[in-house]
């Protein structure tokens, strides 16, 4: 089983994401201009500032040649995880519902947060149980998830919220404490917290590893 981790100009968390993937399986970097996802079973779109995040966060990266391939991969049911900027890219690409707005407090946030697993039935959360609380860091300026009322109702009714900030401790003002969502099919998941930064006791928590283990489990031959 092999992960592919996208790298855009301006990505900065792709090496951590690669290392997190390598703890549980094979992994390689996919350059944004490449269109080759051969041999890749699951895609991770990492954090950072793709193409400088000029205009709106994630808005230009969605047109990268590699993203065209990721969209096909997702349409075929392939598991895709977007972390932070990767989440923003997936929302801009229309693969995930909603949009990310500047934090309510306008400040850059960097802190450990508790994230509750609201849906343990995706390829990225199958190694968790619903209600599990994961300790994972956030670090973002534009992490306030938003959806217009009708879309929000739809997302909630479909059970598409995968992660919520736990205990009402919502760092950025996102609607309904949403920290991460999935597409209707469930194979595409995005979240603002950084599971790839929580894979070693050295940094305080290994809870993030569960997302990568989940993908391995989801793809394991039955």
């Amino acid at each position, binding site marked *: 089983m092999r992960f592919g981790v996208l790298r855009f100009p301006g990505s900065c968390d792709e090496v951590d994401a690669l290392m997190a993937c390598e703890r549980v399986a094979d992994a390689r970097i996919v350059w944004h201009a490449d269109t080759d996802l051969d041999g890749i079973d699951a895609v991770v779109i990492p954090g950072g500032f793709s193409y400088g995040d000029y*205009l709106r966060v994630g808005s230009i990266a969605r*047109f990268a040649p590699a993203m065209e391939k990721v969209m096909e991969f997702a349409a075929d049911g392939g598991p895709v995880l977007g972390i932070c900027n990767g989440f923003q890219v997936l929302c801009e690409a229309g693969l995930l519902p*909603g949009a990310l*707005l500047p934090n309510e407090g*306008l400040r850059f946030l960097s802190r450990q947060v508790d994230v509750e697993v609201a849906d343990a039935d995706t390829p990225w959360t199958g190694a968790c149980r619903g209600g599990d609380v994961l300790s994972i860091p956030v670090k973002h300026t534009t992490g306030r998830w938003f959806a*217009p009322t009708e879309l929000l109702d739809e997302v909630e009714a479909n059970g598409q919220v995968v992660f919520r900030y736990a205990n009402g401790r919502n760092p950025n003002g996102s609607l309904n404490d949403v920290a991460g969502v999935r597409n209707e099919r469930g194979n595409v998941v995005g979240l603002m917290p950084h599971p790839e930064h929580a894979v070693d006791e050295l940094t305080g928590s290994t809870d993030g590893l569960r997302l990568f283990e989940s993908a391995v489990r989801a793809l394991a031959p039955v």
Partner: protein
Amino acid sequence: MIARVLIKPKDGILDPQGKAVERALPTLGVGSVSDVRIGRMVELRYEDRAELEGLCEKLLVNPLIEDYEIEEVAE
């Protein structure tokens, strides 16, 4: 032709940047200004209005969170 694409957060969406400006107003002694909303302005040269509108919908604007209008500018 030159156009200005004026982009602003949709009504009802919290605009913390606008709020921050608003909070500064009392210290400046400004009492008659309120409801500050901050957006973006993109000035560009174009030939085909339909193509420009397509660009707005596809890239310049995220219609989930932003409204826009196109203002033509005399050269």
